[in-house]
């Protein structure tokens, strides 16, 4: 960010979600897993939405997944995103199951495809917040 003020909306971690955002700072994609029913959960909650358990553990995910769907935003709604258009907003389905909203980076909007394999990419937008983006998966799968 080279000292420039970050003007886009930032997440405000809560007591419940803080381990997730500490994870992105540490280059880890952390999910919750219910100790009672075993389901993996995203976004972070205080309660398992499957069985009401309060015993949720944090586990480290592979950070790999696929583009479930994507769009190219050509007109930003929040003015601070205007300098980025066109950019890719996507839903990624993690190999562990949960889906999340993110940006696809490291590839031009015209080269993004549904079902494309991707991996986590971390962006330290402020000293306190690291956003979770995704980029094309590098490795033998791409050959």
């Amino acid at each position: 960010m080279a000292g420039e003020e970050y003007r886009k909306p930032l997440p405000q971690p809560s007591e419940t979600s803080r381990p997730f955002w500490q994870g992105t700072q540490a280059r880890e994609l952390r999910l919750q897993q219910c100790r009672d029913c075993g389901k993996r959960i995203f976004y972070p909650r205080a309660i398992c939405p499957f069985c009401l358990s309060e015993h949720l553990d944090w586990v480290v995910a592979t950070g790999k997944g696929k583009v479930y769907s994507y769009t190219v935003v050509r007109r930003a709604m929040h003015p601070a995103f205007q300098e980025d258009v066109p950019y890719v907003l996507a839903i990624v389905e993690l190999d562990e199951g949960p889906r999340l909203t993110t940006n696809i980076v490291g590839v031009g909007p015209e080269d993004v495809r549904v079902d494309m394999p991707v991996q986590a990419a971390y962006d330290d937008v402020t000293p306190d917040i690291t956003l979770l983006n995704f980029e094309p998966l590098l490795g033998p799968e791409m050959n």
Partner: protein
Amino acid sequence: MTLKRAAAITGIGELKPTRNPDGKTTLGIMAEVSRLAMLDAGLEPKDVDGLLIGPPIVEMVPMWPSVLGEYLGVHPRYSNVVDIGGASAAGMVWRAAAAIAAGHCRAALCVTGEASDVETFYSPRARRRSQLPYREFEVPYGPMGVNSGYALIAQRHMFEYGTTSRQLAKIAADQRTNACANPDALFFDQPITIDDVLDSPLVVDPLHLLEIVMPCTGGAAFVVVSPEAARQSPRPPVWLLGAAEYATHMMLSQAPDITTSPIAVTAPKAFQTAGVSPEDVDLVSVYDCYTITVLITLEDAGFCPKGGGGPFVAEHDLTYRGDLPLNTHGGQLSFGQPGLAGGASHVTEAVRQLQGRAGSRQVPNCELAFVNGNGGVMSEQASLVLGR
């Protein structure tokens, strides 16, 4: 019918009050008491199918039932925000009973919660922004409001079923033809072709400008009366023949399946209650914030097979003089979307057509209408069958 013994309260959850939130959020508090009440009643989230909320005073946000339902894993078939101040809790009791008596749900969770203190409560400017999951996990990535959500739905639908932009554009063009027969439509007298839609700028791929609803000013109201009063009505009564409601998520990333909407649950139930099927319908009057919304609605309501919406809209004439009259007022895409009155326009147009006063766009012998209301990113759906 009265509500005497129509329902009973079987569980409660409550927190000991504190002077200030101590780091708790409103959503967190509502989730906590919801959990306690469900456990007290011996219920799991999947057992709860009604969700009523007395909205928090210092955190006014839209669509509280979807926000809390998503968080808890509750998919309500009856959602309500009961906003009558201190009477809200008592008001929720009888509303829940009424919904249960009418067969719309079996177990309704009624929730209140507030994360406040004296300073916050009496100082409007100190009211903090709501700490909701979408602010934390979607907004930082730059969504274009719900536009980008529907774009994600359309893109996935194209991937799964081969739907094309030309097929989607046909919906917008046919509805504009309808608007050109409705002097009250925002885009009256401005016909467009499929190519005009495809040539309009891509705003949020794959959606073009003319596939996206335009916010505007307006309003709509209607009166619902008892059968006794209906018989005294100066106009032909339009009867509610069937209804159903279902909500599954707030954020699109949390939807069980983004190309199949809760309409797949609500429409069959509404048709079943009415004792009719999609092929009996004379008028389709369904929420159309985007072209893809209409396409998925037609599929999920059973007008065509799942995934077959693209060829279906290409093969059928959706205008008021066509074989499947759809959104004869122009739909919100061409009539305009004056806030929640946009959704109401599908009800008012169905009433006009069923009463035979739709003027030059009147559908001949219109006796049965399918109406659908859609909220969020195809998150919450209410389907109606209306008839003469």
